[in-house]
């Protein structure tokens, strides 16, 4: 148990609450009631494995932070008290203070915002986490995370709108605010609250206003839409801010006051309006995911195309199925899926713990995606084993083991089920409200489009080569390849047009991402779009010249190269561009641009700069 001092100051103690039955979102504040009585009151929390129940009489009520934005002086005492208590290194902070500001000297106002985990009613981190590292407790409603369970995929850091979970690239795991439940157990407010020097930060049962406070607002300028997670934080802001407030960090977002008095993000053209290539900046720590999504989609596209073609009796594919080349083709699709899984594992902070990625099938799209792709790979693998005895080379080497055609077909069809599920949840993974740039149907058209184009080309090339070698007629396959590329490009194109249209009018962080896409990466973006258009045209050409083998081969080779380039640019853009609905940063701390700069110039080599020198 946390030890209360003899001289503990009065302000550090939680006050006796006076609260309604339900919170603003109509959820019961009593968490035993909210859990439907599934959990008994008076349960031990076993903090640091220590038994015993705390003395806090309100421990089964949902607690919340209360932040008086009028008062915060930006003194960092809350952040420091938190890091001191939790023994965090400089580059990790469970609580951070950033600010927005506006006006013209001397009519100038800065509003500091101190933000940690809001222990949400709908904890998207918990739902997203594939390892089930998160628990929302009936004690205080605290959302706690176990760093030892975490394998460092970072998905919770994507879905959280408040930047609460902290991914430590050195330890390869996430950790976060624990609400100081050890202090709460003995009636003390969290360390950050007790340390506050502006009388801005407070804490208590949700909807219970602290002493001397009159508002319990849901939002202030710079705070993301509370509808995403129903966060347990309430605000007081009685002093008006200017109609437009800006951020000091590199994020090209500012906030504008709407007719309803709410501030919404709009683009702040911090990066100018020039269109640039910035190819070097396309590389990021998400590179393994670029490869994972591209190769697994290619594999699925190629395998689905072949299997469906064979099922529907498409002559050249049936012939291919019977050829000696079918086994290598299936092997390639398995290998690609395997490479994808490997890549997604290397993306983890703790790759050797990849097996924990299937622990939260009930909630997490990451789990379902992983399991889907894994099972897909497994069934394609079994299919490979089942077709192997048919293969002429196998028979030459190993003898005749019999035929298992029915089984093979069954396995191929079965593989398509987890394959589809995997692909679908791969898409669902990115439908994150806190990341508006991804949270669009275009993500689906892009994933399916890629599967069609790259999968179509892979299957097309292998089938064509086989037929040319065996002396068959490849023109139908050439036409089919052309059709796949055309459809894929069209699908991708329609998605991009719709995405650009929606992002342009979005008034959210997605619009900001799109602004960066059109400026910092403007030329790269245009190149990719041009390639898509050109490839659609080339695909039509390919379909018309299908009988001309030499020309077709040239066009397909060209398509292969350009499609891969387009896919690579498109997918890297997808990852580097996304701007989460995070809180405003400060000039150095929580400023991505400064972190990048510090790494570039070597300032980050001094650990006290608080920037991890080398991310990977």
């Amino acid at each position, binding site marked *: 148990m946390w030890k209360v001092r003899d001289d503990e100051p009065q302000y550090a103690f939680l006050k006796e609450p006076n609260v309604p039955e339900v919170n603003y979102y109509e959820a019961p504040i009593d968490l035993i009631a909210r859990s439907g009585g599934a959990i008994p009151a008076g349960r031990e929390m076993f903090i640091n494995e220590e038994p015993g129940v705390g003395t806090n009489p309100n421990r089964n009520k949902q607690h919340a932070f209360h932040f008086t934005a009028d008062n915060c002086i930006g003194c960092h005492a809350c952040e420091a008290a938190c890091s001191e208590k939790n023994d965090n290194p400089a580059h990790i902070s469970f609580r951070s203070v950033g600010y927005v500001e506006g006006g013209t000297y001397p009519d100038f106002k800065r509003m500091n915002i101190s933000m940690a985990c809001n222990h949400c009613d709908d904890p998207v981190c918990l739902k997203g986490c594939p390892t089930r590292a998160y628990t929302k407790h009936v004690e205080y409603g605290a959302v706690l995370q176990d760093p030892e369970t975490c394998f460092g995929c970072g998905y919770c850091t994507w879905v959280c709108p408040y930047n609460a979970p902290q991914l430590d690239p050195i330890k390869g795991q996430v950790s976060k605010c624990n609400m100081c*439940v050890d202090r709460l157990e003995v009636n003390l407010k969290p360390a950050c609250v007790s340390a506050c020097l502006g009388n801005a930060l407070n804490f208590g049962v949700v909807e219970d206003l602290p002493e001397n406070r009159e508002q319990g607002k849901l939002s202030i300028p710079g705070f993301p839409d509370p509808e995403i997670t129903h966060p347990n934080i309430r605000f007081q802001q009685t002093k008006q801010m200017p109609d437009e407030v800006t951020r000091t960090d590199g994020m090209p977002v500012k906030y504008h006051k709407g007719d309803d008095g709410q501030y919404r993000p709009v683009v702040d053209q911090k990066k100018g309006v020039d269109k640039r290539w910035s190819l070097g900046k396309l590389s990021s720590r998400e590179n393994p995911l670029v490869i994972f999504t591209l190769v697994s989609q290619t594999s699925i596209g190629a395998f689905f195309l072949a299997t469906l073609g064979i099922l529907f009796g498409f002559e050249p594919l049936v012939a291919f199925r019977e050829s000696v080349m079918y086994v290598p083709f299936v092997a390639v699709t398995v290998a690609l899926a395997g490479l994808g899984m490997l890549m997604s594992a290397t993306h983890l902070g703790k790759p050797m713990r990849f097996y924990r990625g299937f622990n939260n099938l009930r909630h997490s799209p990451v789990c379902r995606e992983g399991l889907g792709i894994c099972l897909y790979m497994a069934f394609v693998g079994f299919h490979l084993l089942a077709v192997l005895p048919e293969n002429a080379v196998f028979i030459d080497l190993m003898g005749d083991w019999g035929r298992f055609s029915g089984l093979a077909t069954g396995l191929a069809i079965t593989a398509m089920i987890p394959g589809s599920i995997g692909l679908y949840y791969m898409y669902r993974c990115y439908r994150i409200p806190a990341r508006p740039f991804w949270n669009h149907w275009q993500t689906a058209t892009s994933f399916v489009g890629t599967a069609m184009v790259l999968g179509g080309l892979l299957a097309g090339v292998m089938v064509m080569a086989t037929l040319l070698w065996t002396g068959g007629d490849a023109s139908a396959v050439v036409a089919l390849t052309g059709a796949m590329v055309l459809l894929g490009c069209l699908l991708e194109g329609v998605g991009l047009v719709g995405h650009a249209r929606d992002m342009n009018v979005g008034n959210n962080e997605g619009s900001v991402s799109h602004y960066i896409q059109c400026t910092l990466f403007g030329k790269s973006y245009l190149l990719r779009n041009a390639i898509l258009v050109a490839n659609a045209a080339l695909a039509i050409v390919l379909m018309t010249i299908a009988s001309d083998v030499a020309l077709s081969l040239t066009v397909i080779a060209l398509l292969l190269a350009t499609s891969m380039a387009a896919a690579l640019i498109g997918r890297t853009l997808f990852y580097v561009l996304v701007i989460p609905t995070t809180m405003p940063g400060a000039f150095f701390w929580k400023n991505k641009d400064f972190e990048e700069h510090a790494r570039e110039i070597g300032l980050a080599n001094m650990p006290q700069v608080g920037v991890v020198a080398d991310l990977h």
Partner: protein
Amino acid sequence: MIFGRKNRKPITIADKKVVDWKYAVCGYCSTGCSIEVGLNAEGKPVASRGKGNAPVNQGKLCIKGIFEHELSTTSGRGTEPLMRDKIYNGFTPVSWDAALDRTAAEFKRIQEKYGRDSVAVVSTGQLLTEEFYTLGKLVRGVIGTNNYDGNTTLCMASAVSGYKRSFGADGPPGCYDDFENTHCLMAFGSNLPEQHPIIYWRLKEALEKRKFPLIVVDPRVTMFAQFADIHLPITPGTDLVLLNALAHVILKEGLQKQEYIDAHCNGFEELKATCEKYDPVTASRICGIDPDTIKHVARIYAKAPSAMSIWTMGINQSTHGTDGVCGINNLNLITGNIGIPGGTSLSITGQCNAMGTREWSSCSGLPGYRMLEKPEHRKEVAEFWGVDESFFPAKRGLQQTDIFPAIESGEIKALWIVATNPLTSMPNQPRIKKALEKLEFMVVQDGYQDCETVNYAHVYLPAAVWGEKEGVQTNTERRVNLVRKFTEAPGNSKPDHWIFSELAKRFEAGQKIRFPETTSDIFDEMKQLSKGQGRNLDISGMSHDLIEAQRGIQWPMREGEDTGNPRLYSDGVFPTPNGKANLLAMDYIEDNEVPDASYPFWMNSGRVVEHFHTRTKTGKIGNLNKFSPTPYMEMNPDSAKEFGVEHQKYVRLVSRRGDAVVMVQLTQRVPRNMLFIPMHYHDCVNRLSLGLLDPYSRQPAFKQCAVRIEHIDQKEAARLNVERRAF
């Protein structure tokens, strides 16, 4: 999972396994917060927390205090004395005997050759009061140089001079409790939330209990200015004009407390005559505050049942610093706001023990606010120490800011620097570097071997820092508080008082004077010296243990009293010849380097909350330093547009002294013709600053000079930025 799961996940919360908490007063600023440092089973400091029942901070700490336990493991500490013949050679580690013998021998040689005053000593506000007292005894009573001063000349000298001119003696008359009683608070050039966050919290608590007007005078829209009821964005360096104008309005409208003035003040007629010239319209054209606002503020202040003023470097670091302080004192005297609850002139001091050095170090005179200029004081101290009275000079010697020019001119040949870093902290750094190269001998005594000034030293003496020795410090409200020793100094480094006593033994005179070994013995000696008729600075009722028990005691606490006294001059009796305070008639003379066509920007400087002074401590603690790891300046976005300057890019600033490379932070916090640069970074703001001196306090005007902006290649700038940061 939401509400329950079959297999409970462990809840792991860091446990620092503290077995013992040690009491200390914080070693950063002068607020004087009581800290408890947590030690683990190995005796290693692992945690800090505010002392719950301490009167100053009531359990709170600012960011620096929260991580103060990490000081004991900061990099760059000196562990062995170092020595070299020439400053272009490398250092060799030597024994304490070798280092101290050489130091004493060089001091003696130089004093014999060039005279007693050719050795100068520049001390600090960082030591324990007992150490200051010991150093004073050594310098005044043994070495006998008159060129002895502290770095407090850079921060509080104007407050000291102003208090002396107005009230006859140094010593802030008010206390933090005045916030609870005042009906109006006016802050001049003080950014409390950033510089003294705990004092701000005390004020905020008072304001939440009972709202009273808050007026902030500052050219920048700091958080404090933003939260003020009335913000006066004054033109830099013109506070005296505003203060005279406020007095003008009060006197014009008959709002003064005439009976108080008549009973307790000298010089009323002269003040009245001078202030007559500063009508609000005339004043507004100089100080930039409109006449109506001046009148409004004057009325609020004068009509409040009690009103108080606080100030910090915005006033002190100015060519009119002392006049500004006296102007504030005038304002409070004519409104009867001295020595009453909620009515005071309270300078908010800088360093943890700036007050201790003012009181006991003998820098500006003799211990216990005694003056060299008074024969009876010379006699008293000479007898107490057992030295010849004639050994003391009859007049104070050079101050820190005059010592460096005296090195330049060849009057001073040897310099002993104690716990200060003039190479970063003095204005006009290029001039300081050049001067230091001329010295025949320089000793730097500091906890940090990587403190930039060490680069110019012949001898480096590694000293113990906060928590590695025991003794007292005095805070802004005259509260004497205790630091217990809770950890060992690294390697062979030693407490400063040990170094002083050991050096004394190497002088003939030093062998005759008693230098007590422990700080509590030294404190007992100081107690004896603090006694006397009519003395305010009386600590004779205190002891180390009693100080800890009461979490600090405000002097005066005379023998036999239970505790200290919160305020001075409550009886209206001042330590002047006739017992009355002096109202001072002061004219404003425009003497700053002001922006012009070639150098179109005001350069202003100040603090950030996460750093202390020249970053030798805070630059090494990641959880502090990360909030501002590299130099930057605030610039107005509108003028940035005009000059083609971009946010978060580097620029080169050029003044008539030198240049600096900083990163740009665009914000409307500053006016279009001003740049604000935090003062903590080496090779930055003081390559630019001019530092014209206040005629009384000799304190430099750090905050007023002119600079221009030049573009610089971004890669080159980044390279320079990294190169100039060893920490």
